[in-house]
């Protein structure tokens, strides 16, 4: 069914038949993509706080040359980060060595030794620019295309566009880190103006993955079954008397799904049942990697079961090394490096990498320099002018690098792409056209990419 048609039906039937229909759309019925695509699912690995590009994937030998010298920002009138440049600042060389990896010869720093072994499966964009240097606004931009709250996130759009392949699980699952949830919490994966059924369902990696999944502990399965049986019989009797309300059936179906989820979810999301080798690969039993590693493994399990969009978050501001770059970035890199490499290799060995798109990015990049007063424990500040991100998996051209930054890595100078271009690319790789994926709201047809993005053609196979 086309999106226009679906939306028309939804809009016209809300309050009468729309709810059952929406349930069918989200759960059972699968919506059609706009064009054939390899990627059926997407795993979005969100590096909150902003990763330093010049310490990971974008080596800048000139930083060595200018290390500890003052940078001249006087010409940067248009920066949105004026406050950062109010004081004298010194260039900071990268504390990490780079070397070339894979057949593509990609530069990777020693911070990410495991990811370095995967570079032939990745394609990098070094020239993404963003619009806002504040964490919350930039995170909203990364997730929803707008710096303000209230818009649907990429995951909600994709699920709206493609539906779900598994009737027993939600289409869009979010796996945050409970040490620090992203700013604005669930608004970052909210449905915005889309129907609420497209919002991300938050799952936890400790304890039950879904809220209220289990009946109260004092109940036996007999109690639960008797209760469910009674509810069924009353609701069915009521339905027979009130056939003019199709929502009644929709709600009966939702209860059956909930009932199935009670048994299905613990079965799907069970990292214990994985082999020792797999667990070791993801690092689920190591202190540093257990949070991200367990969640990467959950992401694979969810994608295997037909979940459309899975988004992982590092803790809020975890990569935000204004000071203490060496310690901070080393810790964060260690937490994600091994799990992400494991995820890519595991998906590959299971034949799932071709149909799963992986996106890795933060909300912005970082600056080549830092205020002089912080020199002792130097770090890097927010940078909206350049960020490095990568794609892997379904439909991409692996081993390519797009875009360049200037001599110091401060600004993207070649093949510059905006966040909405990244969004257009994600949609494209999943078979959706960003101009055609619309939803009518507040007086016009809204899009993830607003007036449209440019697909980053260089990374598309």
């Amino acid at each position, binding site marked *: 069914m086309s999106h226009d048609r679906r939306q028309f039906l939804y809009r016209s039937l809300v*309050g009468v038949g729309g709810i059952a229909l929406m349930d069918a759309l989200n759960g059972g019925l699968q919506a059609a993509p706009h064009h054939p695509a390899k990627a059926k699912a997407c795993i979005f690995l969100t590096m909150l706080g902003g990763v330093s590009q010049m310490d990971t994937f974008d080596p800048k030998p000139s930083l060595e040359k200018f290390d500890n010298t003052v940078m001249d920002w006087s010409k940067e009138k*248009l920066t949105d980060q004026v406050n950062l440049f109010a004081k004298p600042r010194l260039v900071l060389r990268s504390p990490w060595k780079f070397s070339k990896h894979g057949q593509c010869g990609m530069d990777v720093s020693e911070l990410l030794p495991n990811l370095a072994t995967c570079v032939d499966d990745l394609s990098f964009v070094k020239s993404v620019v963003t619009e806002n240097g*504040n964490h919350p606004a930039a995170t909203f931009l990364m997730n929803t295309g707008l710096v303000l709250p*209230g818009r649907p996130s990429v995951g909600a759009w994709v699920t709206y566009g493609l539906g779900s392949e598994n009737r027993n699980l939600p289409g869009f699952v979010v796996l945050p880190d409970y040490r620090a949830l992203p700013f604005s919490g669930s608004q970052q994966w909210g449905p915005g103006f889309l129907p609420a059924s497209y919002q991300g369902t938050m799952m936890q990696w400790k304890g039950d993955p879904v809220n209220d999944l289990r009946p109260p502990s004092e109940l036996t399965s007999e109690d639960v079954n008797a209760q469910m049986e*009674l509810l069924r019989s009353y609701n069915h009797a009521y339905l027979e008397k009130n056939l003019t309300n199709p929502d009644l059936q929709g*709600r009966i179906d939702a209860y059956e799904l909930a009932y199935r989820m009670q048994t299905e979810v613990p079965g799907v999301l069970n990292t214990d049942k994985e082999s020792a080798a797999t667990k070791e690969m993801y690092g689920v039993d190591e202190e540093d990697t257990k949070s991200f590693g367990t969640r990467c493994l959950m992401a694979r399990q969810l994608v295997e079961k037909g979940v459309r969009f899975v988004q992982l978050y590092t803790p809020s501001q975890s990569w935000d090394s204004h000071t203490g770059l060496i310690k901070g970035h080393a810790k964060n890199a260690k937490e994600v490096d091994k799990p992400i490499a494991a995820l890519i290799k595991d998906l590959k060995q299971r034949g799932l990498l071709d149909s799963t798109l992986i996106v890795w990015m933060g909300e912005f990049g970082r600056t080549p320099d830092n205020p002089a007063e912080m020199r002792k424990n130097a770090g890097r500040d927010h940078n909206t002018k350049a960020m490095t991100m990568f794609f892997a998996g379904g439909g991409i051209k692996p081993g390519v690098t797009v875009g360049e930054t200037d001599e110091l890595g401060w600004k993207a100078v070649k093949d510059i792409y905006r966040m909405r271009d990244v969004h257009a690319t994600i949609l494209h790789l999943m078979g959706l056209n960003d101009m055609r994926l619309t939803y*009518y709201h*507040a007086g016009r047809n809204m899009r993830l990419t607003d007036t449209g993005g440019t697909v980053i053609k260089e990374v598309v196979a």
Partner: protein
Amino acid sequence: MKASWSLAPIALAIAFPIGAADSDEAVFKEKIQPILAANCAACHTGAAAQAGLSVTSLPDLLKGGKRGPAVQPGASKNSLLVQFAKGEQNPRMPVGGKPLPESTINALAAAIDSMQPAKSAAAPSDAYMKWLFAIPTASKAPDVKNTAWIRNPIDAFVLAKLEEKGLAPAPAADKRALLRRVYFDLIGLPPTVEEAEAFQKDTSPDAYERLVDRLLADKRYGERWGRHWLDLVRFAESDGFAIDGERPTAWRYRDYVIRAFNSDKPYDVFIQEQIAGDEMERRGGNGRGMAEASEGPVALGYLRMGPWEADANFDDQLRLDWLNEMTTTTSQVFLGMTVGCARCHDHKYDPIPQRDFYRMQAFFASTRIEDRPAPFLDAEDRLRMRQTLRKYEEDLDALNAEVREMEEILRKKVADNEKFQEILNDKKNTTFTEAERKAYSDLQERSRRMTAESLRFRPVAYSVNEVAPPAVLEIAPTYVLSGGELAAKGDKVEPGFLRCITGKEEKAAIPFSGRYRSGRRRALAEWIASPSHPLTARVMVNRIWQHHFGNGIVRTSSDFGKNGDRPSHPELLDWLATQFIQNKWSIKSMHRLMLTSSAYRQATSHPEAKKYAEADPENRLLWHMNWIRLESEVLRDSMLALSGRLNPEAGGPGMFFSVKDEIAQGFQMFKWYPSDENQQRRRSIYAFQRRSLMMPMMEVFDGANMSESCSRRSVTTVAPQALTLLNGTLTASESKHYAHRVLEIAGDDIDKQVDTAFRLALSRGATEFEKARARQLYAVSANTRRTPEEALTRLATVLFNLNEFLYLE
């Protein structure tokens, strides 16, 4: 007026045609094309043109690319072409080449300025737009055949359309359905068993009308209908964004709204108080419920309810965001117009040029945020507020003395006083024991918590104030901003009303300016609240209708524009609007009118449903009553009412609900302290509204998103709702209390227990079938050696989950 468009589907977007004057073509050929051909055409030509922008012809430039039109004739400053060439937009063009010489850019700009400015955005053209921007007039109620059905003119308007299509209305709803419908509709709670029985027994002809009057006079009416308004005005008690700081006295605005509904404050006054409450005070004495002196600043909280990025780097941008938000929300809420589209460009669908957005924004240019002193009113329990604050202050003094005392003791252990904090923070340093550190930090946290709590009781309004000459030199000028960008200032504009309504662009008269007030907001408020405004009354009566009937006459109740829905009954809408004004903008008079109509009293089912569904599948003509599902707040409140544990405490600072530890501890910028259990059982409208932490029940059942105006709740059906309602903590606790309550009433007889449980939840006894099925549950329970009370608890959970409980017939 014949409404030929009454059943038309949503109008699809059609771009306005773009034309260019002949003389402009000449300017383009001579002065612009050569520059573009030499510098830009390499990338911006043909099908593969970068950003979709081709520069080969003037129409191409006017059409523009992804960022919008490249040229705005007559306005080089606003033309993207020039902005990119100058580097005002990123990336500076030509990308990868040298910037154009200044002389070349100036030549380009001069050529563009010499062109004919484009005609302003389309004037209202079609019949709908003409109707929309004309003052509503009441047409006579149409003649109908089935005059017996007519209780008031609403019915004549509804029936006329039905008869035109050969349809007949549904039979009247039975008394039970009607009773429940009107209870949930007006007070958001179920009738008690006694109330239901009394209504059943009351056979007098006006029994229903008296019920409506009684419910309208019930204090709980304001708690129900105030919530609808809070949805619209994006009410929240925190800033949102990173810090999401608390707005300690924002609850006073919530209570102001509840009081306004309960006292049937005239809607025109309600509008004026929220937009210009501070400027209205002095007028006073009009005998129509104008604000008490300190209510004005509280009502103004409306203007500040949007999200606020407290740690924004750019003050100017923050202020602009705020002005934009107020402009957009105000026109959506009061006028049903989406002027927000015109922030960046002329509205694509409605006749709102970009200038008009900024002319409207200029009404707010003299406004600044301020927490204003505002003594508590009697209605706010002034005495309690004062006593509570005093108690907090005393306790805080004592507590802070304790903090100082402990600090002194700890400081004695440190040689270098300067290093005290450093050593305290350094967990490896052994100067202090773990216990000392903990005791000190706990004490400090107690003080912080108590301070935060005390702020909620200060006589302060979360409000705005004026910056006006001579208090300042001049009011900051307002500019048209190209693409909405702060850096792209275009023409300066003065406050002015939307020209699609006034018919021309002219500076608004500001009659009430004074020494410390610009009078701008008051001028706007009086214009909006004027009986001759074509939109205000229509928009509000349509909102009231939407909540009563499930759908508005215009279903897109905050978008009456071209892209919105078309009214199903335009004559009825106009008649209601004129009635509203005639009845001195009394909202309760509108309730009475709508609720006592035959249209509202119809059953949800119809004997001809199958046939009729083909003729009017969306029930636009109201051939039966729409099914309505309880909203999240109503659902939660009703569960507490049924278990007998709803705490009816009204007003005052909100309550903090319990959340899972991992969520409560996930916040970096604040701590979340749940209120005591009794407080937590207050009605949902009194739950503290933190933007980053919605009550789980509200979140899963489509609660209002607090970041922008919500004119209508979504109604979704998803599995997590079932999980929450089956397994959640509220269900668990209230099911137990429900069972206990039923046992007390019904005693040991199982059939009587089941019957009582049904009567409480559904206002009817259980059928034989239902009793038989329930006995099976009791049997299973008995097998597992459960008490009857435990079986009853299961039954209570089932009742909370019933479709018959959640949907109103």
